[in-house]
């Protein structure tokens, strides 16, 4: 399945998907912080905009929403790329040339 946006994570080859445990633990550690940090960055940028343009409280509100969206987008892309990897592994042909 292809997502509506470009895949952000390049295909991971068979050797990686064989080592499922390591990859799974890696993902578990990755995605949690990804969400939190993106929200924090969004809020910080909003706060900075508020500080310089005196638009309090709108900057931080919009920033929080955008940050959360950015975090979700990253996680979503990772999930999509994982899913398409799995489908590549199930089907025998891995023709993913046009993505990478």
């Amino acid at each position: 399945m292809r997502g509506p946006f470009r895949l952000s994570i390049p295909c991971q080859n068979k050797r990686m998907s064989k080592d499922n445990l390591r990859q799974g633990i890696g993902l578990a550690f990755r995605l949690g912080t990804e969400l939190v940090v993106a929200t924090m960055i969004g809020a910080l940028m909003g706060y900075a905009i508020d500080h310089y343009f005196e638009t309090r409280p709108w900057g931080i509100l919009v920033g929080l929403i955008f940050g959360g969206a950015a975090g979700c987008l990253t996680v979503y892309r990772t999930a999509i790329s994982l899913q398409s990897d799995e489908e590549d592994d199930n089907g025998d042909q891995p023709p993913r040339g046009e993505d990478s």
Partner: protein
Amino acid sequence: MNENPLHHFELHPSVPLSLFGFDISLNKAIYIMWLALAIVFGLFLLINKSGVRMVPSKMQSMAEMLLLFLRGLVDEFIGKEERKFFPFVAALFFFILSCNMIGLVPGSYTITSQIVVTGTFALIIFVMTLFIGFGRHGLHFLGILLPSGIPKVLIPLMIPIEIISMLARPFSLAVRLFANMTAGHTVLAVLFGMSLALPWFIGFLPFGFTVLINGLELMVAFIQAYIFTTLTCFYLGDVIKMH
């Protein structure tokens, strides 16, 4: 006994120095960093000195395994023709791994539990990706902020989101390593504090847990070094290929 569990993260200068008004005092973290460098350098020097054989010794096969694994990462995420990034990636991996591992030795210091250290790593990588991106693609590099195939209506919405997710990369790299190391060592400190504060017939329980947590920390030390390198490769590959 009633010590603050965060106390062992504090740093105090042991040799106060200053250069042109900058504080470059030496402290425990810097000694440990030198030690980590010396260990990585020394180990590989030792392996090289003892001769690279067809039938590898224990040390050599270990090093070969790790290096092949890292080369696999580089090939996979950056591309086979970009092997020149391999030394950087390998150095990063071994340095972070040895820093994390040294931190598990009682009485030493975990330098990766300082956000300054992990932040510096992440900043270097971020600046590097920017340089490589603009160097290779010129102004086309800004196209990375605009995912292909989105409706025109969504463009003003997507650009700030893409900028945030781009900026979040170095932060999440830094925060992940720092938070995992700090959290693990804080848990260890709390458990040790409990086992010292309680009478022996209950105190052995938290003490036993420290052994388990130490094993877990060993795994976390490796996994964090692995994640850091994987993501470095992925970010470098992302700006090089640009899809």
